C-alpha cells in the first residue's frame, strides 16, 4: 500500500524513495500513540496520505507533462493486449492528472475501502465523497477519452 501511495504522489524513483522513507519514519514515531480506536488500516492510510498530501514535496518531474490527447486514449484497445503492466502505467498516467485529494480518493476507491472508512481517513462526509467520486469518474473518463469503455464509466 505504501508503494502505491508513493507511486501516485511522486514522479521519480528518488522522490518515491524519499516519501517511502518519510512515511515509514512517521509510522514508527506514531506507533506508540496508536490506541486501536481506529482500524489499523485507517491509521495507516491517514499517516501515508497526510505525509504525501500535506508534505507538498518539491517534485522532480521525470518528464514534462504530456498532452491529454497523448494520454491513455487507447485504453480500451490495449486492455486486450498481453501487457497488463502497460495498462497499469496508463492508469497511473491518468491518475497523475488528478489533484492530490482526487488521487487519495481514487486510491481508496481502488483499494476497495468503504465510504465510511474513507470518511474516517479523509474527514470528508460520505455524501460529499460520493459526489466527488462521481466527478472523478467523469474526469477520468474525459482524460482517457474512451467514451464507450472509459475508466470512469459506471
Amino acid at each position, binding site marked *: 500500500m505504501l508503494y502505491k501511495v508513493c507511486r501516485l504522489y511522486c514522479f521519480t524513483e528518488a522522490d518515491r524513495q524519499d516519501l517511502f522513507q518519510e512515511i*515509514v519514519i*512517521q509510522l514508527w514515531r506514531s506507533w506508540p500513540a496508536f490506541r486501536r480506536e481506529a482500524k489499523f488500516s485507517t491509521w495507516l492510510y491517514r499517516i501515508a496520505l497526510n505525509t504525501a498530501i500535506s508534505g507538498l514535496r518539491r517534485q522532480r518531474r521525470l518528464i514534462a507533462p504530456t498532452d491529454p490527447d497523448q494520454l491513455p486514449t487507447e485504453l480500451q484497445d490495449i486492455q486486450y493486449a498481453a501487457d497488463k503492466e502497460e495498462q497499469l502505467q496508463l*492508469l497511473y498516467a491518468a491518475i497523475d492528472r488528478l*489533484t492530490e485529494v482526487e488521487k487519495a480518493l481514487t486510491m481508496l476507491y481502488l483499494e476497495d475501502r468503504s465510504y465510511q472508512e474513507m470518511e474516517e*481517513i479523509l*474527514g470528508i462526509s460520505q455524501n460529499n465523497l460520493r459526489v466527488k467520486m462521481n466527478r472523478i*469518474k467523469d474526469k477520468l473518463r474525459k482524460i482517457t477519452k474512451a467514451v464507450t469503455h472509459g475508466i470512469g464509466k459506471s
Partner: protein
Amino acid sequence: MELESLKYIWRSLETPPAQTPDRQDLLALLAQRYRGRGPVARMRRNLIGEGILMCVTYTPAILCYLLAFDGRLSAISWLFGLLAAAFFGYYYRLYRLLKEMQCVTCQVKSNLARQVKTLKKYIRFYLLAGTAMIPVSFSLSYAIIRWKMPSVFTYPSSPAGHSLYLHLHPIPWWGNPVFWLILMAPLTIGIYYANAWYINRLYGRHIKKLQELLREMETE
C-alpha cells in the same frame, strides 16, 4: 472499461519494487539519522540552524564586552544578553508552533486545517516579532546606555559657545526619545513591508496550496 476492472488491475498487477526492504533494511532505515524533506521538517531545521548561529555569534560578544575593557563596556553585554533572551523566546515560540503544526494520525482534512491555522499563526508571529525586533532593540540600547553610561547624555563644557547654547536652550528630557521615534517610524514601516515580502516569498505558495487543498475537500 469499468472502474471495477481497474480495481482488479490495481490489485493484481501491482508490481512490488525490485528490492522489497526486509526487516533489517527497515531497522537500518530507522536507525540512520534521517533528514525529513517535508516543509515542516525543513522549517524546523532552519529554525534550529538560526538558533545555533545566534548562540555562536552572541555568546562571544556578550563575554567579550563583559570581561574586556575592565568592565567599562558591560552595558553592551547587557544589551546583547537581553537581545539574546528575546531571540530565545522568539525561537521557542516558533518551535512550539512547528511542533503543533502536523498531526499525521489525524484525518487528512483536519490535519490540513490545523496546518493552515498554525502556519498563519506562525507567519503572523514571525512578521510582528521580526518587525518589532528593530525598534525594541533600539529602545533597549537607549535605555541601557542611559542607565549605564549617563555621561553620554551630559554635554561637554567646551567649546564654550556650544555649552552656552545648550545652557540657553536645554534639550528637554523627551527630546532624545522623540528624535529616535521619528527616526525609527519610517524604518519600522520599511522593515514591516520587507518582512512581509520575504515571508510571502518563503511561505506564500505553501499556504496558498494548503488552502486550495482544504477548499477542495470542503466544497461539494
